[in-house]
């Protein structure tokens, strides 16, 4: 077990923190104008160097996902969840679907079969919410 | 040598916090030393009291038992206290952010305090003994073959202070050797440390303080008090300067 147990030791931790906060905003865990944990709270909770946490938060401030209120703390910029979703959607075909289709082509899986899998999955998902 | 004396002499240019720490570290060493050396003095007093009580009950005496039983070996206790400057207090003080200079300042404070208390204790011993011996009509003979007289008290105090201080400083020097080169090789400093001790033995009167291995005592007689004060003071200052110089280069492992 590591002091920052939930972080892997192969990627810059500030990047992992930023990614995690992005994920929380994207999934609506952090709502618009909601205050996020302070860097100190975050650092103490996860046993991480506060400078590392501050760097992650600063990255999100620079990206316009968080805004600062002097002396109070940091908050989620309204509408940024939607913005993140739009960005992810735009990258979905290139980043996620592209490699899958390339692999399917190498394995000679016909497109109809893939479409059938997708249909079946979304039906299952709807059947068992 | 001048620079070494400056090294351990307090100066008014230091910030108050540094001067305050000098006081704190001196207290730590003085009380840390008195904490055990006090027991030695109490034990010596008790043993002496028991022996004298027995002698008063069953016999008579013609020499000072205080000199031989209680006072005569105190220089070795003080010598051991000097060794602890480097072997005990150096680590304790440096670890807590004090400089070696503060260690030396504290050692001088401890040396002075112990020497004065020892002298007072010794004078009290000789005084009580004289009252007891006089009441019984016994001569209180000293190793110098003279009997103790009330006029001897100032000289007794002076000699005691100088002897105690020089043994402490000698122990301090040897302790530096132990701390630096280990118990075996560190003992090599026994030689340079013995020089001021031997010299001081010749500067005090044969009788009250010191070892009394002084074979030329009868021939040289008692040195003039001015000689003892000036030469003894200079000798002590030089010994302390050497010890402080060694302390300045002390290392924690």
């Amino acid at each position: 077990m590591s002091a920052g147990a939930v972080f892997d030791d192969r990627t810059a931790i500030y990047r992992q923190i930023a990614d995690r906060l992005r994920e929380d905003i994207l999934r609506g865990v952090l709502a618009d104008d909601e205050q996020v944990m302070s860097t100190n709270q975050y650092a103490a909770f996860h046993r991480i160097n506060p400078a590392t946490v501050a760097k992650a938060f600063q990255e999100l401030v620079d990206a316009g996902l968080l805004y600062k209120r002097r002396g109070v703390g940091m908050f989620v910029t309204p509408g940024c969840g939607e913005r993140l979703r739009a960005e992810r959607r735009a990258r979905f075909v290139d980043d996620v679907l592209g490699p899958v289709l390339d692999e399917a082509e190498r394995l000679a899986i016909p497109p109809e079969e893939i479409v059938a899998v997708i249909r079946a999955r979304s039906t299952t998902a709807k059947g068992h919410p | 040598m001048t620079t070494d004396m400056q090294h351990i002499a307090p100066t008014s240019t230091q910030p108050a916090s540094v001067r305050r720490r000098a006081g704190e570290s001196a207290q730590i060493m003085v009380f840390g030393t008195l904490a055990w050396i006090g027991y030695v003095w109490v034990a010596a007093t008790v043993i002496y009291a028991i022996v004298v009580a027995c002698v008063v009950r069953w016999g008579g005496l013609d020499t000072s038992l205080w000199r031989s039983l209680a006072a005569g070996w105190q220089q070795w206790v003080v010598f051991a206290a000097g060794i602890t400057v480097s072997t005990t207090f150096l680590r304790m003080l440096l670890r807590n952010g004090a400089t070696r200079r503060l260690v030396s300042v504290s050692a001088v404070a401890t040396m002075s305090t112990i020497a004065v208390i020892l002298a007072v204790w010794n004078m009290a011993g000789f005084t009580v003994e004289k009252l007891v011996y006089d009441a019984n009509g016994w001569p209180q003979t000293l190793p110098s073959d003279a009997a103790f007289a009330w006029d001897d008290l100032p000289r007794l105090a002076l000699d005691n202070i100088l002897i105690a201080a020089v043994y402490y400083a000698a122990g301090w020097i040897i302790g530096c050797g132990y701390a630096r080169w280990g118990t075996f090789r560190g003992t090599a400093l026994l030689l340079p440390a013995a020089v001021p001790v031997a010299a001081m033995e010749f500067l005090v009167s044969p009788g009250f303080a010191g070892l009394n291995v002084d074979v030329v005592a009868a021939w040289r007689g008692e040195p003039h008090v001015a000689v003892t004060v000036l030469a003894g003071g200079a000798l002590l200052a030089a010994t302390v300067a050497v010890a402080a110089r060694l302390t300045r280069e002390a290392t924690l492992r």
Partner: protein
Amino acid sequence: MSDSAPFTPSPIGGHTIELRDLTVRFGSTVAVDSISTTMRAGAIVGLLGRNGAGKSTLMRTLAAHRRPSSGTVRIAGEDPYEHAQLMADLCLVRHDGDFNLDVSVADSIAIAAALRPRWDAAVLERLLDRFQLRSDRTKVGALSLGQRAALAVSIGIATGSPVTMFDEPHLGLDAPSRYAFYDELLATYMAAPRTIIVSTHLIDEMAALFEDVIIIDHGALLLHEPADELRARGIELTGPAAAVDALTAGMSVLSSRTLGPTRSAVVLDRLDADMRARATAAGIALGPIPLQDLFVALTSEEAVR
């Protein structure tokens, strides 16, 4: 300090430490070999190295417990050796506590409190509670090694020293005590930032606490960089031996293992997009490596430099 206020490192928290060609010799042995680097004020620095790499000697020298054989140490711009004010600001906590064993716990604490200008009695109280220690007449020598180590780190933290160093603090502390130590170190650091140096080889456990990492080997400085940058460095290339050799030619290969026709090499270099494409084309798999493995690769005897 408000709990939710954003963290801003205080500009006056801690001292900068500059080393220039710092060398410490013991006879013919070189314990610290010509180290030059600068540690930022107010950073938590991890000092990593194998046993005997010179970590303890380096820390002793920074604490002015010994003189360098050559080269210089500058802390807040000044030579700490016999510097009355600066030495009071330097605290080195050794895992055994460096204590005088025949002194009581209460007196050991009182001595530190008397000599440390920034002593925080409230912090000490909290730490003693946390470690279930009592400030009483018990001799330090009568404490268990674990209790002694806990007392040592408690006093070290409570000194509030602008430069506080912990030499292998994990050695005496069991796991719950170590986490308590990390928590309290962070809490006091966030309340009042200072320069903290921790030597350890429990890298996995402590890495997230470090802002910067220094790795020394055989007394010499191998690297000193932000922990997060180091974490992102180090790539393992696994694939056909010839292809791996071709791609890594000219790179600093830290270690390499061969199993049949497959070779796995660890390099410290960053791979640009072009190199990554070439690697993929040659059937070489690229993978990040954990900090601990990177450390092992950097300091193992077989490391190719």
